[in-house]
C-alpha cells in the first residue's frame, strides 16, 4: 500500500531551509531584521555618528565590517526564535515520527540563517557604496572576504540554533541573542580599540569579532591582514564546532524530556 519513499538527510535539510526562508519572507520582524536594519544601521553610523569619530580614514570605509558583523548578530535572533518555536510546537513530534532527522531540521535552520544574513550583508555593501565606500580589494581579496564572512555567518547561525534549543520559550531565545549583538560594539568594528579604556582593550583585542573585523578591513582596503585571518577562522571553527556539539546534546535532551 505504502511505497515507503525515503528522503535523504540533505534533501530534508534543504526542504526545511526552503520552508524557513518562505516563512521568514512573511514575518514582518524577520524582514525588518534582515532588510531594513542593515540600511538603517549603515545610515546611522555613517551619517549620524561618523562625523564625530576620527579613525584616520573615511568612516564609511572603516565601519563596513563592523556593521556587517552587527547585522549577522541581529539576524541570529530570527534564527534562535524560529528554532525555539519549532521545538515548542507539535511540528518536531510529527517530523520525528516521519523519521525526518533532527539534524536535518537544524541544518535547515542554519542554511536558511546563512541565506538571510547573506542578503543583509549584500545590502550593507550596497548602502556603503551609495555612501561613498571605496574598497581597493581585488577579485581574490573579495573571494577571501566571502570565505571569512561565510565562516562567520555559519558560526553565528550555529550558535543561534544552540540558543534556540537552550531557551525555554521563543521570547527567551530572543533575549539570549543580546550577547551576540553586543560583542561587535566592544571590538574594533566601530572605533579603534586604542581609544577605549585599557580594561576594555584587553577584552576587545581578544574576542572573536576583532580579528574578523581586522581581516575584513585588511582585505577590503588592501592594508594587510597579518595573522588575523587565522585567528578569525580559528574562532569561527571553534564556535561552530562547540555550537554543533552543544546543539546535538540539547536536542536529545529536549526530545527525551517530552
Amino acid at each position, binding site marked *: 500500500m505504502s511505497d515507503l*519513499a525515503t528522503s535523504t538527510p540533505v534533501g*530534508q535539510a534543504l*526542504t526545511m531551509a526552503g520552508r524557513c526562508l518562505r*516563512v521568514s519572507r512573511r514575518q514582518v520582524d524577520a524582514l525588518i531584521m534582515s532588510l531594513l536594519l542593515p540600511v538603517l544601521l549603515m545610515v546611522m553610523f555613517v551619517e549620524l555618528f561618523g562625523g564625530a569619530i576620527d579613525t584616520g580614514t573615511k568612516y564609511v570605509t572603516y565601519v563596513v565590517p563592523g556593521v556587517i558583523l552587527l547585522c549577522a548578530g541581529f539576524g541570529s535572533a530570527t534564527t534562535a526564535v524560529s528554532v525555539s518555536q519549532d521545538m515548542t510546537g507539535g*511540528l518536531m*513530534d*510529527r517530523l520525528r*515520527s516521519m523519521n525526518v532527522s533532527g539534524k536535518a531540521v537544524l541544518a535547515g535552520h542554519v542554511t536558511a540563517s546563512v541565506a538571510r544574513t547573506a542578503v543583509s550583508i549584500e545590502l550593507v555593501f550596497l548602502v556603503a557604496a551609495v555612501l561613498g565606500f571605496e574598497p581597493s580589494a581585488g577579485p581574490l581579496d573579495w573571494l577571501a572576504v566571502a570565505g571569512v564572512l561565510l565562516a562567520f555567518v555559519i558560526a553565528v547561525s550555529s550558535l543561534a540554533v544552540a540558543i534556540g534549543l537552550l531557551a525555554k520559550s521563543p521570547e527567551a531565545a530572543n533575549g539570549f541573542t543580546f550577547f551576540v549583538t553586543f560583542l561587535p560594539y566592544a571590538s574594533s568594528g566601530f572605533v579603534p580599540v586604542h581609544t577605549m579604556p585599557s580594561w576594555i582593550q584587553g577584552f576587545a583585542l581578544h574576542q572573536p569579532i576583532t580579528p574578523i573585523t581586522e581581516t575584513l578591513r585588511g582585505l577590503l582596503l588592501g592594508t594587510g591582514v597579518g595573522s588575523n585571518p587565522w585567528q578569525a577562522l580559528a574562532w569561527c571553527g571553534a564556535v561552530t564546532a562547540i555550537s554543533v556539539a552543544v546543539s546535538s546534546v540539547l536536542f536529545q535532551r529536549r*526530545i527525551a524530556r517530552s
Partner: protein
Amino acid sequence: MTSDLAIDASGLVKSYGAVRVLAGIDLRVRRGTVFGLLGANGAGKTTTVRILSTLARADSGRARVAGFDVVSDQAQVRRRISLTGQDAAVDELQTGDENLRMMGRLSGLSRSQARVRAAALLERFGLVDAGPRRVATYSGGMRRRLDLAACVVAQPAVIFLDEPTTGLDPRSRHAMWELIAELVESGVTVFLTTQYLEEADRLADSVAVIDGGRVVAEGSPAELKQRVTSERLDLTLADAWAFDQVARSLGERALRADASRLTLGVATDGSASQIRGLLDEIDPERRAVSSFAVHAATLEDVFLDLTDATATSRERESARV
C-alpha cells in the same frame, strides 16, 4: 498469527521521575481497524501514544507497530506510521498547500509527486478553496483537517491521533469523524485517544479504557456497554431525606448517585413490569421519586463505573497499607 496485528504491545511501563504514568499496559490492535484509547486527563493516553510512535521509550515492556519493534526497528516503524499530536504541526505562515507539499518532500516524494499529492489531499479534506491561503486564516476545524491531511501525506499504514477533536465545535467534530472513518476504509489502522465516549463509540472497533496507567477494560463499545447494564432507570428524588432513604435501601445497586442533584440510577432490563416493580419497591409511599427516565447505557456509564471502581480499589489498597 501476529501478522494481522498492526499494534502489539505488552507490559508497557513508564515513569517520569517519581510519577508512574504507565503501570503495565497491554494492547492489541488488528490491521485496518480503529482502536480507541479512552481515559481521563493524566490517565497515560499521550504517553502510550508517544511510546508506540517511537517518540518516547518505555522503561520496560515491548511493542511492535506495523510489524516492527518500536525500539530496535525504530526507523522501519517510523516509515510506516504518522502522528497527529494535540498541538497542530502545521506552519501558520505557510499556505495549506505549501504545508502539504513540504510534508510530501520530507517523506521522499519528488517535487511534482508532492504537488499532485497535496492537491489530491486538499480535495479529499475539503480544503480546495483554503489551499492557497495561509493557515493563520483557517478556523480551528480547518486546521485540524489540514493537520490530518499532513498526517497521511506519506501514506502511513498506522496513524496515531492524540485527541483529534478536542476543542472543536460539534459540526467540525462530525466532519473529522467522517474523514477518519474514510481513512479506515482505505485500509489504514487508526489508533486514537479520546476523552469523549461518543467519539470512541462512533469510531472505534475496539476500545480500551485506561485509568491510573492500567487498562481497566477492553472490548468493543457494545461489549463494554453490556458489562455494566443494558438499561438504566434514572430517578430524581423529591428531597434530600428521600434521597438518603432510597440510596440506603438500594445500597450497592445505586448507580451514579449524586446527592447534590438528588439523582441516582438503578439497572433495569427496560421492561415495563420490571420498572413498575422497581418503583414500587423503592418508593412504596409514592412520594420519594419525583420523576424518572429510562436510558440505554452509554460508554460514559462504563467509563465512570470502571474508573470509579479502580479509584475505590486503590483507596482500599492504600487504606490497607
